[in-house]
């Protein structure tokens, strides 16, 4: 039986150091393993709570996308080399199972369907692709994004896919018919900067709560100097059915931050991780306040996060080469 959540007591309980700055992380479904990726092109599997690690080599570039299969036995990684690799994550000696050259350019995000059979991947080639989890066979692809796609998730019933791009467009796709159904406007997350002749921002993270009937999309805004890392984290809360913006969550006092990932806790609280010149921060939001209701400073700039609801644990990975595990209670 897990201890009740008290977000005000959130604190780090484990930290393990690697050899290179870390990029992304995901908990295994059982909460006993965390997969992380790093700037040396490797993926590591870290045992929780022991911290023993195994290093997986197979990508020729950084890995931004990680996802465990439903049974937790396999891990799929998507790299900036455009490659998907399946790994036997829970084997005594984890190894590569298969690899697929999936996208032209970077893979930005992947997700596995609720029935465990289909993998969705998105990337810089502006394509959303569907793969058989069992065989790696391409099942189909969808186009419609005009710029790089940063995020993707399956609706809990598996019938829809949701993907977000640089321009702040969130597309909702019918999986069976492979077609675009509607688009939600998240352009507050898009930050073109004419002075620097640069485009910045985008829908960096998405999370859907059926019980709340809400979709959250995160990233950044107020990018007055994107080249100098001056931008603030932003979380948008939409009604899932109507696509209407219900709340714009801002974070005062965080002049340098990007909301790399946002997720839902079981009680309906939204949690996000911000990393930037203001440091690494866990931010908590509810539906009554625009500003965050609580924040927990992390020891170093964070770049990704994953919540394991069963144990009320949060894995975060950091530039200072540490994987940290926090708990949402005393």
């Amino acid at each position, binding site marked *: 039986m897990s201890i009740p959540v008290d977000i005000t007591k959130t604190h780090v309980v484990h930290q393990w150091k690697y050899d*290179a*700055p870390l990029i992304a992380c995901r908990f295994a479904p059982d909460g006993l393993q965390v997969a992380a990726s790093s*700037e*040396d*092109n490797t993926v590591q599997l870290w045992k929780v709570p022991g911290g023993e690690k195994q290093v997986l080599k197979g990508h*020729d*570039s*950084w890995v931004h996308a990680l996802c465990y299969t439903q049974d937790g036995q396999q891990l799929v990684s998507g790299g*900036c*080399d455009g490659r998907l690799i399946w790994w036997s994550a829970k084997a005594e000696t984890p190894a590569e199972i298969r690899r697929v050259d999936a996208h032209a*350019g*970077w893979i930005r995000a992947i997700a596995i369907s609720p029935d465990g059979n289909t993998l969705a991947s998105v990337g*810089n080639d502006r394509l959303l692709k569907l793969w058989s989890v069992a065989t790696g066979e391409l099942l189909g692809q969808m186009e419609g994004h005009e710029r*790089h796609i940063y995020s993707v998730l399956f609706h809990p019933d598996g019938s829809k896919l949701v993907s977000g791009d640089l321009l702040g467009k969130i597309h909702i796709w019918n999986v069976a018919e492979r077609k675009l159904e509607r688009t939600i406007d998240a352009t507050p997350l898009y930050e073109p*900067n*004419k*002075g*620097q*002749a*640069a*485009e*910045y921002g985008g829908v960096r993270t998405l999370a859907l709560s059926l019980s709340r009937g809400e979709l959250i999309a995160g990233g950044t805004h107020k990018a*007055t*100097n*994107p*080249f*100098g*890392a001056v931008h603030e984290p932003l979380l948008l809360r939409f009604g899932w059915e109507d696509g209407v913006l219900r709340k714009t969550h801002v974070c005062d006092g965080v002049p340098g931050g990007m909301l790399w990932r946002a997720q839902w806790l079981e009680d309906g609280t939204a949690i996000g991780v911000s990393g*930037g*010149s203001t440091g690494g921060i866990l931010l908590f939001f509810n539906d009554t306040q625009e500003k965050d209701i609580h924040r927990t400073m992390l020891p170093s*700039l964070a770049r990704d996060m994953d919540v394991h609801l069963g144990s009320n644990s949060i894995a975060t990975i950091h*530039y200072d080469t540490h994987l940290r595990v926090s708990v949402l209670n005393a």
Partner: protein
Amino acid sequence: MSFAHYACGSKEHGINRRRFLQRTCSTAVAGTAVVGGLGSLTAGKAAEQLKSQDMRVVVFNMHGGLSQLESWDPKPGTRTGGPCRSIPTSVPGIHISDLLPNTAKQMHHLCLLRGVNTAEDDHGKGAYMMLTGRRQSAAADYPQIGAVSAKMLNDESKGLPGHIVVAPSGGGGRGNESAYLGPKYSSVALSGSTPPPHTLRPDGISDQAEVRRHEMRRRINQEFLNRKRTAITDAYTHSYEQALRLMERRDVFDISKEPAADLDRYGKHDFGRQCLMARRLVENGVSFVQVTHSNYDTHNDNFNFHIEQLGEFDQGFSHFVNDIAERGMLDKTLIVVLSEFGRTPNINLYYGRDHWSKAWSIVMAGGKVARGAVYGATNAEGTEVTDGQVDHGALFHTYLQAVGVDSNQSIAVDGRELPIADPAVQPVWKVLT
């Protein structure tokens, strides 16, 4: 004057948006104290011969500091390599970044110089060094490569300015580009897709009225010049005459005259249009064109920004090089891709790279430059030059030698012999054929 918000907040990053006429006139005010500003070449006959050869220079200025690791000197799989990979090029054994797939197909025309060490990490100072071949000092000011090219190469009988800067939103020339050469050789700034502003005669002015207006202006000018002639008055006079010639040849600056298919090929973005403008200008005999591509000052999110920026650059630049070569102009056209410096091998906590001048790269092509070649090298992580180190002074000499200018000669200005390039250094002879 307003300045854009750049990461470094440096004044040098500001883009001056003054229009062409204001620009050409104001440079006179910024000029050094050289009366007349019309220094003459020591070897006049040789100079005329050179001008008749129609040599041209096109500089692509990667504003803010292009990352050598995401372009010309990738280090994939190393601590400093980042997520980008290297790809083979049209020259076996030479690899460049996978962000430049189309440029890779033009490698047989290019020469990579991977051992650049300029030891200057400040934007303004670095840009000055790369464009003048000298360090900035309070004691002297030096002309930029564009001004020197205009003086040495431009055939004024064609009625076109010899020094053109194509920059985003019509911004352009700043500071004292022509120094002791005088404002006559300062740049004319273009937006890249449209002719210079205010170069159409108003409908209400007839041919006869136009002639009378200019006769009156010249007469008044001459009366004034008879009493008081300075560099500033010369600059004003020259600006008006140059504007008149521009009005006559306005079509040269209109890229809508180019085939629609070329616009598609080069890319329907500012940089694509600017590259097409550069092609049109050199085809019409302009001796120097600088195309500015902004912005590469990526202290934050270096890789995403380089994907965006180099995507544009790769499309426009590769077609430009290919077209210049296919049209038989490469022997007479020097192409240079430079920045004020490179970017740090170290990847910072924001996925960014900072300023780095100790080991970076530039590219040259055309003229007398060796084709399909690499000169210089850096170590495995790109932190130091290990072979073929060159600096801004040697590069400046090399640009000039590549278009047939003896960079060791001097220019006589008010009786003083001023070396065109730093006499303490020599060209990189090994990259010249």
